[in-house]
């Protein structure tokens, strides 16, 4: 930076308020004019923010179908509070980390370790797919919340589709895996009822989100 009056070069670590050569107060020089200039940009930026909020209200909450979209996008995340994998016939494995924050410690059952599951060829890939599905469902939820502010309705549909594909592939793999584990006399592991319900809801959500993309064209035309 140079002194605006005498042009002396001011090094970054020279923090003094006044220029060492001409004594100009660097903090206050042209202070009010700079504020007025900043105000012009700040007003524009605030308008951008206000528009974004208005778009969120108009296209994310006000319309009944949009409101349903917002509420239904939380459903897959809540459903994962149900057991997704049955381990050894009785104990269950949950996938929703929210359960853990309730202090239940029910994420994995006793005696279960991810490291020990490497003996089953399909367990880890299937488990990974479920984790990806949960992540995609979470992203879909955030897209539904934030999307209307940016007039983006497609992202949520894409994330729901990815989540559905991963969950379906994971479910199929768990069923194959179940047969394999029984034959190897290892503890039985299979897809639980929660996973089937989750898959069904994810499919319904995906169809709804894709239909919503064409519905949202009406919003774009209005906007």
């Amino acid at each position, binding site marked *: 930076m140079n002194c605006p009056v005498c042009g002396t070069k001011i090094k970054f670590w020279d923090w003094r308020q006044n220029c060492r050569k001409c004594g100009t107060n660097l*903090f206050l020089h042209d202070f009010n004019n700079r*504020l007025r200039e900043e105000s012009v940009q*700040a007003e524009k930026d605030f308008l951008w923010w206000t528009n974004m909020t208005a778009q969120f209200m108009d296209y994310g909450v006000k319309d009944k179908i949009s409101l349903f979209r917002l509420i239904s996008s939380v459903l897959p995340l809540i459903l994962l509070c149900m057991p997704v994998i049955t381990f050894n016939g009785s104990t269950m494995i949950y996938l929703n980390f*929210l359960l*853990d924050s309730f202090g239940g*410690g029910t994420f994995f059952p006793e005696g279960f370790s991810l*490291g020990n599951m490497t003996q089953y060829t399909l367990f880890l890939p299937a488990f990974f797919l479920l984790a990806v599905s949960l992540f995609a469902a979470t992203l879909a939820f955030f897209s539904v919340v934030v999307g209307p502010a940016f007039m983006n309705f497609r992202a949520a549909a894409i994330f729901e589709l990815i989540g559905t594909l991963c969950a379906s592939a994971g479910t199929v793999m768990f069923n194959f895996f179940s047969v394999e584990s029984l034959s190897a006399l290892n503890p039985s592991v299979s897809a639980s009822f929660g996973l089937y319900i989750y898959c069904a809801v994810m499919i319904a959500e995906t169809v709804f989100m894709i239909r919503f993309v064409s519905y949202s064209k009406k919003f774009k035309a209005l906007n």
Partner: protein
Amino acid sequence: MAETLRELDSADVNALDISKRYVNKKGIIAFILYDIANSISTGDFERFNTDALKLKASMFTLANTIVGIWDIINDTFTGVIIDKTRTRFGKFRPYLIACALPAATIGLLKWFGCYIFPTDAAANASMAKFIFTLICLFLSETIGTFQNVAKTGLLATMTPNPEERIWLAARSAQLSAVVDNIPGIIINLIYDMMIQNKIKISYKGFYTSIATVVTIVSVSLSLYFFMNVRERVVQSIEKPKVKDGFISIFRNKPMRIILLSEFLGAFAVSVSKNDYYIDVLGMSSFGTLTEVPAAPVSVISYGWINAMRKRFSNKSLWILTSHMDAVINIIAFLFGIIGGTGEKGWYNQRWKMFFILFPAEFVRKTFWGVKNVIPGEVLYESIDYCEWKDPNGIRNEGVILTAKGLMTKLVSNTTGSLKAWIKSLFGYDYYSSGSQSQKVKFSLFALSFMLPAVMSLISVFPKFFYNITPEVRAQMYSELQTRRELVTLRKIDISEEKSGEEGNV
């Protein structure tokens, strides 16, 4: 120069329009990100000591006690140093950059201590480890105080428009509320999986990894904030004297009221509600269960701050939100004693208490936004009031902010140990957790609901005398703006005169 100053009349000054906005998009984003980064914690250092550092508990407590005393002492001069700071970046911004790297280094050293010193049983009373921990905590505390005062002071001066200041505080708090729990949940999840041997990470690896990630994020966002935000409220020409700050506090009524109210509020001793949930209702997560359904309301509640401000003054909202918890606690208590204080009392029954506390949480969360924003705004407008009433327009944010903290610390450091004593006084048996006598159960219920409510209500009285009414506020900001403009012109005058004198020499 005196002639020049006399010639300056407020009528000649083309004052800034304080209803306009001054913080641009980058500034808003930087402030929100910095606020979020500040809310991410590196973790519980006491737990880290138990798990990884393994310094003898008595030595660890001693280190914390010494640092606690230092915390009170350093408050007495930190504010003064900050108030005397005048740089080309302003008064608070330099502390953000000057403290960022030392804070990161000390912060990392503190957590990496488990790799520097032996952690076996024989080394738990090591004097070297004790001194190392003490120095780290001591430096962290000192730097942290400077950072906190600078951050709050910067928010008070980021914009001359008080409405924009409220808007910024509300938006950052709202967005922080959405995301700042996520890192904590993830960290707790990893910790649980680690202690249950579901994943193989050592304690040392766990704590140091978190510290490294949090430190990098925090330093980066501090620097980004520093680059994109500037101070827009002019400070006085003269650097304030040490006594000026204290005089300013005691001379101005709103400031006296805030400090007195903080001081009295700090006496609100209570027994943790968790004790009631565990020992009476037999469920540690009961509080979470009642809070979680109302959580979205707390985020939405920031949206109606403006509507509430249109209807009520800052003073009314300050009183309402500061003591709402007390009123809710009293109502919950009154419902809880239906059926008596014995076994048939509602306070013993989980479902009944759920249906009492669940709607109470909804009401509490409805005012969450106002509660998090308005007390801060009351403080900022009181700082502006001190500037307005001061003949030289001196602002003492540093002294005011540290004095406010000091008031609370003086009391809370003394009363902190009272909790255990109060529990013992009512016959709490520490060795029979979960199976306390009926009398103790009722005492726990009363101590966790009624006691804090009554104690907190004491601090409501000074608030009624708070004198910044909407009319005073409007007049104050209008006059302040003209005066700040004058100060700016006067400062430029002095600079030009100085440079003229130097040129003549």
